[in-house]
């Protein structure tokens, strides 16, 4: 029986997961997890900002992680725009993110009647490499002469208002790569400004040294972090249900299924190995008896 379980066709597991996820996505059952410490700290930091303050966000990811970073950014931007905080977006380290940022901000900005270039702007990519970290401490105009739409820097009031790290209330990197470490190493430690991150799952454990050393003020960890942030927004009367919260039901069910599969596979492996050991011992004993008889 255990041997049969180990030779089970994995395509059925894929099919089970696909059916469960499809049903969960169609029915959109909301689930709000309790906010963790890093998400709470990020929320509290944004809460402490005043109307007219500015934040920078860096989109250091590729379109493949849009399903994670879009809900994170949506929750974060809802919070910023509802508090009349001005937003400037960049993707200075990853060229592929240029097409993502502007549409995500625009989608949320329209709901709060925020005007492009006045309340928000998306600057896009600059091929400055690591010199971007120090250039942004002097003036972003050194590395950005236009925004992503081609508008000259001189005609963007919001970019002229928040030109360097010391002008902003928070910088947050939405990262799917190892870039939060670069922002801490090359920018935050040298220029000492509030930094936070919104990261994908594999990167969550890497952020804790920065959080514990106060090099980051907070973190949104994967879709769970986004759902926690949405929960905090709801609790404080900012926003209704978001995509992250409705994803958590599918996540929970799939995690249960996979835990069951992992446990069953481990038990089956253990049982098969034990049976194998017994068989080997029995064969060795039989051989020994046979050898003894022959002698």
């Amino acid at each position, binding site marked *: 029986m255990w041997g049969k379980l180990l030779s089970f066709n994995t395509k059925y597991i894929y099919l089970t997961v696909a059916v469960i996820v499809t049903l969960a996505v169609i029915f959109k059952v909301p689930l709000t997890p309790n906010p963790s*410490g890093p998400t709470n700290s990020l929320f509290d930091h944004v809460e402490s900002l005043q109307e007219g303050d500015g934040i920078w966000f860096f989109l250091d990811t590729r379109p493949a992680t849009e399903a994670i970073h879009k809900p994170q950014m949506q929750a974060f931007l809802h919070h910023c725009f509802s508090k009349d905080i001005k937003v400037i977006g960049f993707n200075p380290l990853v060229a592929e993110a240029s097409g993502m940022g502007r549409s995500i901000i625009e989608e949320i900005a329209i709901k709060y009647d925020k005007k492009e270039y006045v309340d928000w702007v998306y600057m896009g990519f600059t091929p400055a490499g690591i010199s971007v970290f120090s250039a942004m401490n002097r003036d972003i105009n050194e590395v950005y002469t236009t925004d992503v739409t081609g508008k000259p820097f001189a005609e963007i009031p919001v970019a002229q208002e928040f030109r360097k790290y010391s002008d902003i209330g928070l910088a947050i990197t939405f990262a799917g790569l190892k870039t939060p470490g670069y922002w801490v*190493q090359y920018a935050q430690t040298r220029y000492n400004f509030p930094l936070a991150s919104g990261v994908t799952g594999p990167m969550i454990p890497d952020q804790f040294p920065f959080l514990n050393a106060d090099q980051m003020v907070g973190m949104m960890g994967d879709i769970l972090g986004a759902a926690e942030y949405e929960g905090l927004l709801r609790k404080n009367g900012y926003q209704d249900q978001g995509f992250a919260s409705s994803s958590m039901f599918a996540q929970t069910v799939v995690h249960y299924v996979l835990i069951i599969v992992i446990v069953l596979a481990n038990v089956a492996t253990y049982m098969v190995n034990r049976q194998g050991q017994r068989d080997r011992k029995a064969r060795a004993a039989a051989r020994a008896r046979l050898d003894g008889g022959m002698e």
Partner: protein
Amino acid sequence: MLVSSWVIAFFSLCIFSFLYKNNPFYKFAIHVILGLMVGYMFVQQVVIGLSTSFFSPILLELGESSPDWWNLVIQRIIPFVIASLIFTLLIPGRQWMKNIPLGLVLGYGMGLMMVTSLESNVFVQLRKTLQPATSVFASGSFFRDRWPQWAQFVPMLSLSVVVALTLLYQFRMRLPQIKTVIYAALLIFIISLTDSLVILIGVMTVLSYFFFSFERDGLVEEVSRVGLTFMMVYFGAVFGSTLMTRMQIFIGQVDFLTAKWIMGTIRAFGGT
């Protein structure tokens, strides 16, 4: 919008078809996506990069009534010429010139990294790791994240109780109840040290695992095994988080296929 939905849906289904088996649709989709990515990166990095960092600023400056020639040469022309030297790689006998831009970039990177990496990745974090004994009274307490604000005084209070009652017990009151209270307060104090102790033990044992100066045996071997356990816990956490990420990418795609592609198509053809 509808056409783009169908294109995205087609490529998504082509990629998912790999779960059944490797097939021409999957191969077609993967080659198209890779080609698109390279093309997009070329446009972003080279074409837009050259336009925004070189041509546009020069044209803007030249459009001024009195162009700042010095600034233009120092900030745009000379860096462009130095960067262009990388192409001397293609000229026989002049390949050595490529070392100039490479040396500049590497030198700048190394100089920046040497100073900042020590400060950010070693000193700042070492400071936080080496202060568990003091931070337990302020911020590193087991009670900090899990209990209300007032509980941050618990470690100091429990230690004070232990010291005060031990002194009393030694000098005046030899009551058995006091002993119980002392043990209870001591237990609370040890629990309050848990976070700091776990961090300290984790750091020391993991470091011992990577200690190769002499052969590990006996106590060092045992200690390094504890370090290995700490690392396995870390890898387990990374695996769990990776699973969440991969599953979310799948959920996002399923949401697109159901809400935008199927429902969008139904709506476009007059459905509700």
